[in-house]
């Protein structure tokens, strides 16, 4: 019996979802392991449960649009970057604001080191900043070099290096101790997204209609894949067998990573897809769109996981004590 994907729409946002991030898998009630999902909309970062999409809480405090957000590995801390010229650190368990880090311009990106002790920020003042969270009053270390606004900055290579992407169409690799530029990649067009996948082994970069995969350590190009439409974000499955991408034509595409073949495409969003990410266990991927919705999609369609229930043919149509229903049809493009 063929099964059609039923995406779960997470309601409650009125503005575009511009970014989302999963935490690592955390122990939870000693049995279930879940990740947390942080997403930005209405300028208010919201935390949701990674396997069901259920809302946990909203981080309130920023006075402007929030452009970037991240969770630390065990989902106990969150950091946000906003147009109010600040980056904030939050307690992701209580929802309380822990720290406000003043900047000289709009902050676009934030990233924790693996031990959650340092925070990397970047934004429109073209500087990368490293804050020591154990003494936040101390002046941050600053790295200059980009010639225009920084869009994304990530720790890499065991937090020994920093990778940054800017509007100057370059991606630069920096050494953390010397603060010097180690390598630079140039592109013809602005990079729309940059993320580490598969436990930091692979770097995925999107620009135009291209999804490019690089070796994370050497920054050597592994392969590029062309999509039918301009792509804003892509995510590789933890087992590296396939990846998903979404962009301006509102659709989500699923590609085979090895053969580069397009496997599926899903319609469902009513606006451009801004971000798409696999959950750390690879069981689902989340997409955020201009239409203000966050949708969760199953990796293995029909499998029982989270809110999805595998229903055997004999159960369909029979009297069932459990409340089962199928959501309105989503068209498979």
């Amino acid at each position: 019996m063929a099964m059609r994907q039923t995406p779960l729409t997470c309601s409650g946002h009125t503005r575009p979802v511009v970014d989302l991030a999963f935490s690592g898998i955390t122990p939870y009630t000693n049995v279930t392991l879940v990740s947390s999902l942080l997403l930005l909309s209405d300028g208010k970062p919201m935390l949701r449960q990674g396997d069901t999409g259920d809302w946990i809480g909203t981080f309130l405090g920023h006075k402007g649009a929030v452009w970037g957000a991240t969770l630390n590995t065990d989902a106990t801390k969150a950091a946000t970057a906003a147009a109010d010229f600040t980056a904030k650190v939050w307690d992701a368990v209580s929802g309380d604001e822990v720290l406000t880090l003043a900047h000289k311009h709009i902050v676009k990106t934030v990233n924790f080191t693996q031990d959650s002790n340092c925070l990397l920020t970047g934004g429109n003042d073209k500087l990368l900043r490293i804050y020591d969270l154990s003494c936040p009053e101390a002046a941050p270390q600053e790295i200059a070099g980009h010639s225009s606004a920084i869009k994304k900055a990530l720790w890499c290579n065991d937090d020994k290096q920093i990778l940054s992407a800017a509007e100057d169409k370059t991606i630069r690799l920096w050494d953390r101790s010397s603060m010097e530029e180690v390598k630079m990649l140039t592109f013809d067009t602005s990079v729309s997204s940059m993320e580490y996948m598969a436990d930091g082994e692979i770097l995925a970069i999107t620009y135009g209609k291209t999804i490019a995969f690089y070796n994370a350590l050497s920054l050597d190009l592994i392969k590029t894949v062309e999509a039918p439409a301009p792509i804003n974000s892509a995510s590789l499955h933890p087992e590296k067998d396939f990846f998903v991408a979404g962009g301006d034509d509102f659709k989500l595409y699923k590609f085979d990573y090895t053969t580069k073949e397009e496997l599926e495409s899903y319609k469902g969003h009513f606006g451009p897809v801004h971000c798409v990410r696999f959950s750390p266990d690879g069981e689902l991927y989340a997409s955020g769109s201009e239409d203000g919705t966050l949708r969760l999609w199953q990796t293995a369609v029909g499998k029982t996981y989270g809110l999805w229930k595998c229903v055997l043919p004999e159960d369909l149509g029979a009297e069932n004590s459990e409340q089962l229903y199928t959501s309105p049809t989503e068209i498979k493009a």
Partner: protein
Amino acid sequence: MVTPVSVLRMPKGPDPNSRGFDPKSPRFIALCRPSIPTSAVSDADAEQLQKEQHARSVLRERFLRCVLSMTNKNVRFHMHERVKVEATFGASDIDVLNFQVSDLHTPIGVQKEALIRSQDVISFTFDI
């Protein structure tokens, strides 16, 4: 025929009245760092564990002796919703869920025998 995958329910949306992070939620309880150090780690320091356990025993014994000495004494209960009542203490049940009292003075009269739900009690005082 292609059948859409069944779903138990839609994901829960934000509560318009609160910012969330419910302290009673399983997530909060699982991730919140407990105030007692040895509750958090599984491979706790044996000496620390022993010290804490000893402290627990002392506190428990103190509490039980307190309850014992309250028998037949006049006790003033300070409860939720600004309720203050006086009664003669009888006994507590084993789980300290209910207190059996006599001659409970209430605004509408004296109750000969009553059970007070300990959850409703904020504090109580008595003279030794």
